[in-house]
């Protein structure tokens, strides 16, 4: 056996090595091709890091040349992305979409490093993310406060009248048990906080507009926190089945009326202003685009947003179709 195999060492070994090298080269080339685009966005990411970490590995690759309209990972954000994108296309702007990026924590980074140009935002929530101590008393003040804290490469366009706030919402059983009504405040819930399990998306746990603010503003320290999703079916299911007694539900969510949930009052305006407002990168968006998005914001009020959300979430229509139909109806397409 040994002598037999020894005699063949040369050629067979050679060919094997050749194949290994060829395969490794192929693999390296493959890896190189698809990663070249995101390496170009890395320098800007590290220079404007802001946070303690110099490089953000969660950043997605950038697309070059066109206006990239992004969205976070919930249905309304995707819908608004489609509204913005289609409105831009109608004005001749070249658009590509990057939906479902994730949470604000991720998408804000992508705007800073230039891989996303436009993102539908909610002004109060964005402010709370940028400045935990800010307590604006009006939407205008909120916008001014955001501009002051915003990365210099970014800006906010006109806010829409449409609002979609986070909220502390309790299920019917909890409302009955602790005699809470839609007139009750979050402070009333805080009195029985030790018996309450609160649910929300994982980032709710670490946000000012989340457990952090609930504790500092209302003294609400729940028995425990259950990580769910951003006002999606997990949250609704958990609240409905009493896995959690209170949860972060969006004020435009259709499930509130359907499931007889009770939205608690927020007198301290922790979830104060949440007007829909485009967050854009200054360099990436042409003037025609700015005008197009401001025209959208002028037409978008809360009633409209509720209606559009309802078409997506309850009537199961595709968000792109809903966006196009609405733009057409208001003469923006």
């Amino acid at each position, binding site marked *: 056996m040994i002598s037999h195999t020894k005699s063949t060492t040369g050629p067979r070994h050679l060919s094997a090595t050749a194949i290994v090298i060829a395969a490794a080269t192929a693999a390296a080339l493959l890896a190189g091709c698809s990663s070249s685009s995101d390496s170009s966005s890395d320098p800007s990411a590290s220079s404007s890091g802001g946070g303690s970490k110099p490089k953000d590995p969660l950043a997605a690759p950038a697309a070059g040349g066109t206006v990239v309209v992004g969205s976070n990972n919930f249905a309304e954000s995707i819908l608004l992305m489609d509204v913005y994108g289609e409105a831009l296309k109608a004005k001749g702007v070249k658009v590509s979409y990057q939906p479902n990026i994730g949470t604000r*924590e991720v998408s804000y980074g992508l705007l800073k490093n230039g891989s996303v140009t436009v993102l539908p935002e909610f002004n109060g929530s964005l402010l709370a993310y940028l400045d935990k101590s800010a307590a604006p008393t009006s939407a205008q003040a909120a916008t001014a406060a955001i501009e002051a804290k915003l990365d210099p490469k970014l800006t906010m366009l006109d806010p829409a009248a449409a609002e979609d706030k986070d909220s502390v919402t309790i299920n019917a059983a909890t409302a009955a048990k602790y005699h809470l009504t839609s007139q009750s405040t979050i402070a009333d819930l805080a009195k029985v906080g030790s018996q309450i399990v609160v*649910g929300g998306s*994982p*980032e709710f746990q*670490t946000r000012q507009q989340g457990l952090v603010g609930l504790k500092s503003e209302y003294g609400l320290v729940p028995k425990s926190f259950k990580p769910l999703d951003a006002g999606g079916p997990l949250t609704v*299911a958990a609240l409905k089945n009493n896995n959690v007694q209170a949860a972060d539900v969006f004020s435009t969510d259709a499930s509130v009326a359907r499931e007889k949930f009770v939205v608690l009052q927020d007198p301290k305006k922790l979830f104060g202003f949440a007007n829909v407002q485009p967050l854009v990168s200054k360099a990436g968006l042409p003037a025609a685009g700015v005008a197009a998005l401001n025209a959208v914001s002028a037409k978008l009020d809360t009633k409209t947003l509720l209606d559009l959300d309802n078409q997506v979430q309850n009537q199961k229509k595709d968000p792109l179709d809903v966006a196009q139909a609405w733009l057409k109806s208001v003469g923006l397409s």
Partner: protein
Amino acid sequence: MSIFQFISDFFRDSAHWHGQSGIPHRTLEHLQYSFMALGIAAGIALPVGLVTGHTGRGGNALALIATAARALPSYGLLVLMFFWLGIGLTPVMIPLVALAVPPILVNSYEAMRTVEPSPVDAARGMGMGPVAVLFQVELPVALPLILSGLRSAAIQVVSTTAIAATVSLGGLGRFVIDGLYQRNYEIVVGGATLIAGLALAMIALFWLVERLTVSPGVRGGR
């Protein structure tokens, strides 16, 4: 900053070491889900595999079941089960058990098939009854292959239990999912490291079990 820096930061932060969302509690939850799934899967697959292997019937049916079960994507099954059953442990157990059954089933079947007839005949010749033959001859000889099926199932289940966090349960996947949402790369890689470590610990555990339970005669004979 390198990935190793993130990992060491994660483990050095004392806040990660206690409480409901601390490393020990999450690890315990992870092991609890994993072993529950493994236990249920073994309870179903071991008897079926051993009996069919012993009788030699139904081997093709088993291979078919194993192939079909392996084709089911665990994460997809989990999301589907969430829609059907809501939040809870059952929707997590179903995909994990579906994942663990094929290796246990097929390996226990193969293990029984590969027991050579000569020691069985010898045992019968010595006057052993069928039960004694099964427990004193066939099972000890088949044990190494049965254990590798269990080990394979254990590794896959421990790795996959991470998806439980996507439907609000605990376990080490919590670190990964929360970190991805909160954009905290440190706890993402920390959690991933713990899961990988646990999977490697399974290899070590089964190596130990094999050393302790497999008869030296069987081990040396191979």
